[in-house]
């Protein structure tokens, strides 16, 4: 790891003023320190934002939640309101990483988690995300864990976050403070597909700081569920996951929200699946059809073809569980 300058900020204005193209904010550190050790991320300056007063979970006037960027994953997962009203978020958080890592990782940082692609994480390989224009070693490499949705010929890396998948379904809004002031970006517009520029993963400009995330209230009686599939039973990134939210009106579904994890180059909201389910009866046939629609654009590679079917089945099961719940 190279040397760097270190600075601790105690207020948002100061932090933003310290940010810039060669500085990184450090919160939990679970991604950044890891990648700095691998020389994959090499900030010249670290701005420690752990002391920023952004650690509250508050009710918004519309009944939703305002979650400070520094709220730790474990605190968010075990928040009574989250557990009760947004179980999909609690479940997603608790399915990620380990209790220790969840004590460190923050809401803002988790949205910015970097990919687990082996080739991104190893500087001996070509990687367009790490070294733009160098090529993609994963494309013809071992790509079992890689994405099948949203890929381009330049990048097939998955976004690893579980929390972001749930937040995608929850239609979260990211609140950002930057040099030009404050702005709010719906999470659905926050991430960028890799396309020709896989090094650009989201809309943040250098120096932008996520201050908080808001999630709107769910409609009365909405049910939600997060289901994650992986090889071992815990402490592993998703091979496929699904976050679903829906209301069952009579026999039929409405307000359906579907997002997939472990399969996309970003947390993958499937509006196509949502439309396919809207107004349909809550049964296996509808679920299966929605799953087919959600994975219609999938581009399987040499080692990850199984993810297409796995993601479908994961989504079907998540919908079943969500609609069965009393």
């Amino acid at each position: 790891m190279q040397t760097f300058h270190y600075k601790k900020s105690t207020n948002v204005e100061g932090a933003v003023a310290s940010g810039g193209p060669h500085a990184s904010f450090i919160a939990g550190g679970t991604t950044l320190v890891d990648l700095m050790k691998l020389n994959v991320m090499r900030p010249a300056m670290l701005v420690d934002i752990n002391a920023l007063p952004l650690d509250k979970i508050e009710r918004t006037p519309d009944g939703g939640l305002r979650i400070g960027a520094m709220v730790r994953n474990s605190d968010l997962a075990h928040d009574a309101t989250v557990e009760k009203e947004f179980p999909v978020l609690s479940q997603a958080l608790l399915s990620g990483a380990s209790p220790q890592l969840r004590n460190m990782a923050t809401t803002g940082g988790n949205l910015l988690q970097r990919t687990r692609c082996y080739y991104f994480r190893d500087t001996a390989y070509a990687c367009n995300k790490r070294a733009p224009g160098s090529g993609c070693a994963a494309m013809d490499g071992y790509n079992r864990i890689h994405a099948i949705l949203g890929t381009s010929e330049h990048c097939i890396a998955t976004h690893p976050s579980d929390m972001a998948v749930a937040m995608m379904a929850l239609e979260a809004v990211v609140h950002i403070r930057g040099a030009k002031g404050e702005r709010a970006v719906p999470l659905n517009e926050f991430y960028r597909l890799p396309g020709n520029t896989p090094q650009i993963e989201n809309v943040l400009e250098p120096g932008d700081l996520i201050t908080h995330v808001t999630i709107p209230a769910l409609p009365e009686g909405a049910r939600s569920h997060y289901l994650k599939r992986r090889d071992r039973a815990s402490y592993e990134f998703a091979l496929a996951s699904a976050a679903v939210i829906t209301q069952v009106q009579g026999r039929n579904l409405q307000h359906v929200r579907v997002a997939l994890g472990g399969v996309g180059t970003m947390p993958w909201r499937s509006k196509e699946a949502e439309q396919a389910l809207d107004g349909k009866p809550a049964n296996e046939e509808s679920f299966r059809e929605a799953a087919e629609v959600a994975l219609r654009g999938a581009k399987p590679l040499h080692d990850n073809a199984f993810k297409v079917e796995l993601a479908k089945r994961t989504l079907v099961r998540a919908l079943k569980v969500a609609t069965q719940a009393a």
Partner: protein
Amino acid sequence: MSSSPIGQPVTRIDGKLKVTGRATYAVEHAIPNFVYGVAVSSTIGSGRIKTISTAEAEKMPGVLAILHHGNIEKLYHPAGALEETSRPGESRPPFEDDIIYYYGQYVALVVAETFEQAQDAAAHVRVEYAAKKPIVRLDDAEQPPKIERHEKDDNGFDEADITYTRGTADDAYEQAEVKLDATYVTPIETHNPMEMHGTVAVWNGNKITLYESTQGVVNHRNVATQVLGLPAESVEVISPFIGSGFGSKLFPWPHSWMAAIAARKVKRPVKVSVPRQLMFTCVGHRPTCEQHIRLGASKDGKLTAFMNDVRQSRSFIDEYTEDCVDPTSMLYSCPNVAAVQWPMKMNTGNPTPMRGPGRVPALFGIESAMDEMAEKLGIDPVQFRLLNYAEKDESDGKAWSSKHLRDAYQEGAKRFGWEQRNPKVGSMRKGEEILGWGMATMTWPAHQRDAEVRVRFLADGTVRASCATQDIGTGTYTVFAEVVADKTGIPVQKIDVKLGDSALPPGPTSGGSSATTTVIPAIVQATEKAMAAVVKAAAKTPGSPFEKADLKTLKFSQGRVHRANDEASSGIPFEQILQKAKLAGLDGHAKTNTTEDQKKYSTHSFGAHFCEVSYDPEIVRLRVTRWLAVVDGGRMINLKTARNQIQGAVTMGIGMGLLEETVYDTRTGHPINNNYADYLVSVNTDVPPVEVVFLDYPDKIMNEYGARGIGEIGLSGCASAIASAAYHATGVRVRELPIRMEKLMKG
């Protein structure tokens, strides 16, 4: 009167050090003034180093030296197989030349004042390579032209028989009423002990002390003397605590010599820690093993032919094979057996024994094939094994020293409720999920090797037992204390055990499940000699109540010398005798090795695994939900640590069955999942309750307690029990480990 601790659940005598964080592992020794060595490793899998440019790194803060093939001092090759007393993990000394044999091979070592400085500078060493396409798959490797027969070594983890035949297997197979022909593959696995390998090298004049994480301080010392060209008395290897090894720390690896020469160069102690990613390339692995198995049987379930054609990976550096042939030849009764093993050269580091070498991969194939054949025959898998029970070791005709495998099958079946098993695939359910039940045999040979032990009674009332073996977590410290306590009647807590230092009387390497069996006779004899010395002192010391007593009338028990006809309580505590005799202490020293009796018998442990998996077909989720292991492993010395060994082996077995595989990028030869997040081992949630039953038949051929060693046996058979259970639940027979969801989806 205190009862013997042998066979009881005894709390480890070193346990308190471990639960308080005070047990000192290799790179944790307090050495003043030391500096850090960080390795630069190859990013190609095969080829040559063209240039190494160190100019930039040398100028970085804190950098003291950079070693590589262009500037290294002379190192020698270890004698290896030329002599009996030493064996390296890799015979090639570090930086010997510019040739790259495998990805991750050390190409330079940066020494700097701090760890961070050394790491940063290592990242600035520029290496230019001429690369060739590496071979990292058996299918890309060359089949050797002919099979060489190797000497069979009875160490249990050494060179294997490469061929074995009895009867006429080809003909018998052709004529068999029922045939099975299937190929089973176990991947390269990586040991991944929690403590990464490491060395602190400290020179004192021409003498060197190596603080190591090693499973064999004596072997490590012996190899060090050869590589460094030093007399034995100039090298001391110290390893009081080892963060386990599972075989990867059996034999020394190049980082140890890198630390030694770096320390000589910078004239300060040097600490080298092998980072987790290089644990996948530089300190061994379990070779991949492909077994082409053909079984022939009569319709009534008697095996008539057993053939196993094995391809196994090795490196381009050193010869290495592990024995898949032996289990093929001895596990079942069958008149016609043919087994052959082909070592295939690949661009990986050297493979090295990993828990249950040879037998563990072999039993995945053999036991899976037995399960498949049982199904073909329509015979229950347990019954099929009983029908082909080997009443003697048919590989060499010897009688078993003690075999109660039949009991293990029957006891296991009874406890597991095996008779409830419906053999129809997918027929057993629990709620929404499908249950699968599987079982498999386990086996591992028992061996006794050479050991010397010193036992010393001290005037302060304690007893000290010492030996240059080591405790890798199996509980060897406590075994010593228990045996001494059993013989002397002195409580375990008062026995001070000193292990893990090559300066102590030579002891065995902790491998092959043989450390316990090897040290027991030596501890017993040394203790008895020390007791005799105390009794003699009691009779010789003026003023002793037993002065001039006939030695035959005296006895040592309960820590006291007393008249044989009287109660121990009437006697004098040994420390008082020592004090009276003005002695600091009295020693007993014993050296033992394999007995003639042991050579007459086939000495093996056996057992049976029974497991249940639960399968959720819709989301392709397979979990192990219940486990029973019945072990015929002789007498357990310590029930508590013994149970832990078997549970731990099953934990590793669940990993082997469902998770573990070192995956190589075929373009670079890079183990692409070379970290603990991508190379998956079982976590707590993966492991169900594991019931362990010890049959407790002492094997008196092995030693007076009847102990046989249990480090490896628990892992043998695990993966095939899981594969058979998975088949029972899913209908998919996975013949290539690990059993991943995509393989189940294909079925």
